[in-house]
């Protein structure tokens, strides 16, 4: 498998690095404090491809803590709020878009 770091990295807007937590699979975001958080609002935001590469490099180095880190787009709202940049990330961050099973009568 090619490591994510060997792939060409090019970002076109504000981005973050996300992965799943190894022990339970929960969606996590790389923070600026070289850790992980389950809240998108804690994510480190990168704006250049070099920054993205560095952040992904740090994230990938933590193979015990996280599985499958990659760069994904975010949307920055006026108040600085971080929103997922696409539907996939929206679903990862907000959860299923479906109701679970109806509770039987």
């Amino acid at each position, binding site marked *: 498998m090619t490591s994510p770091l060997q792939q060409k990295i090019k970002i076109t807007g504000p981005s973050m690095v996300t992965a799943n937590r190894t*022990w339970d*699979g929960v969606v996590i975001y790389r923070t600026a404090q070289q850790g992980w958080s389950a809240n998108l609002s804690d994510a480190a935001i990168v704006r250049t491809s070099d920054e993205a590469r560095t952040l992904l490099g740090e994230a990938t180095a933590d193979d015990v803590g996280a599985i499958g880190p990659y760069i994904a787009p975010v949307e920055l709202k006026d108040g600085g709020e971080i929103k997922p940049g*696409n539907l*996939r990330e929206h679903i990862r961050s907000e959860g299923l878009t*479906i109701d679970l*099973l*109806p509770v*039987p*009568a």
Partner: protein
Amino acid sequence: MYAYDELDRTLINERVSEFRDQVKRRLSGELTEDEFKMLRLQNGVYLQLHAYMFRVAIPYGTLSSKQLRALARVGRRYDRGYGHFTTRQNIQFNWIKLAELPDALADLAEVGIHAMQTSGNNMRNVTSDQWAGVAPGEVEDPRIWSEILRQHTTLHPEFSFLPRKFKIAITASEHDRAAIKVHDIGLRLYKNAEGETGFEVLVGGGLGRTPFIGKTIKPFVHGRDILSYVEAILRVYNQYGRRDNIYKARIKILVHELGIEKFAREVDEEWKQMGDVGLTLDHSVIEEVRSRFSYPAYEKLPHMPDELKQAAHDPLFERWRGNSVFPHKVQGYSIVTISLKPVGAPPGDATSDQMDAVADLADRYSFGEIRVGHEQNLCLPHVAKRDLPQLWKALDRIGLATPNVNLVTDIIACPGLDYCSLANARSIPIAQELTRRFANHDTAELIGRLHINISGCINACGHHHVGHIGILGVEKNGEEFYQITIGGRADEGAQMGTLIGPAIPYAEVADVIEDIVEAYLALRDRPEELFVDAVKRLGVEPFKERVYATR
């Protein structure tokens, strides 16, 4: 029901402790993800969008009530209280923690269930007709043969490191409920003119990126020779199969590139050269496996018991009976399909409470046995007709008496973008919206048999190519779009659907499907003409016109 022997049990338990050790080493950092990935996939563990997904095999779709309760418990204890029955007679749990997986596997091992052969480039769970052993007119129980193949291929080196995953399905009935024409190998059990039992062997079927209908490679292989013949196919595949390109690695591509005649010749050549490699099945071996399938002690019951005559006055019961109850080979008994497609719910999902309740009903009314079919429904295979009214009431109480089997709301759908990391677009919300649009059972009955199949990407886990109406999620500039095909089918007349035109945005899919159905109702030449038959007669043009004229 099938009784596992000691060897199976030992093997399953060894796998659990092996995996426990591997997980421990992964969590401590001793194993990297790269090293661990193969190992977890061998135990049915994938990574999805939100969490790990755990896929558990239900060999040939047969479960005991005890096993179903164990699945319910796994859902409750380690997941979020539900599971998803798949098109390959497996069940998937969507929220399992890696750290707890060994415990879940151990709980399942106690009832003889495991996750082997549910992922990786090996021989997958051999699937079969969910009515095996009870369908009227069946040649014999095809699960005997599924089991013989399962035993031979589980962890066998020739089958463990194939160029790509490999799937076999078996049917023993005229009507194919196992979709054998879209499997790598499809086996149809029948009796030849001499009265011998054997198989028509099909090869090279499959869906995904490059869909193919399987082709007959040999019209008759005697039952005793089936292992050696399958082995010959696998050897030719192992020799030629493309390991360099995963998109070309399936046997269907090989069959397509060599041509079925050449492929058949190669297999025959290999088969001859192999000679007797100890794979010819002794009568006693077949009988030994046969003896491990036990059948209930059926009673002698009337064809039309009083309970049924009385209940016939209730139109709601009659509707359900007419839709979900099927003839059994033994007089006085029925096969009951339990629809896992209630209006508005994700197709194929069942809560742990529902699983427990179905297990109880199976104990009371179906000799403790449950089946899982590729349409993502459950089935109680041995229900005495006199018990049907009671069973119906009980199913209704747990939300499982929706009379929509084989109707427009009996939708097959993959997890799609709500769960799956490979998805382009969502599948489940589309299915949910369609079930609401067609929630009126009178309308659904008027429309008649119509299978809608939805996949969230080209991998085709939702069998969209062979849906009477197929819906495939694609992505266009970051938006969800859907390609619609019509006229596909998965049974003995299997055929790929035809694309009707440009992809349609998410919000319009349900409208488009309604348009197609309305066009069919207007165009069919009589009420008995099924949707697929109307498409066959008319072609896609009139439907296309209806959909795109105003868009």
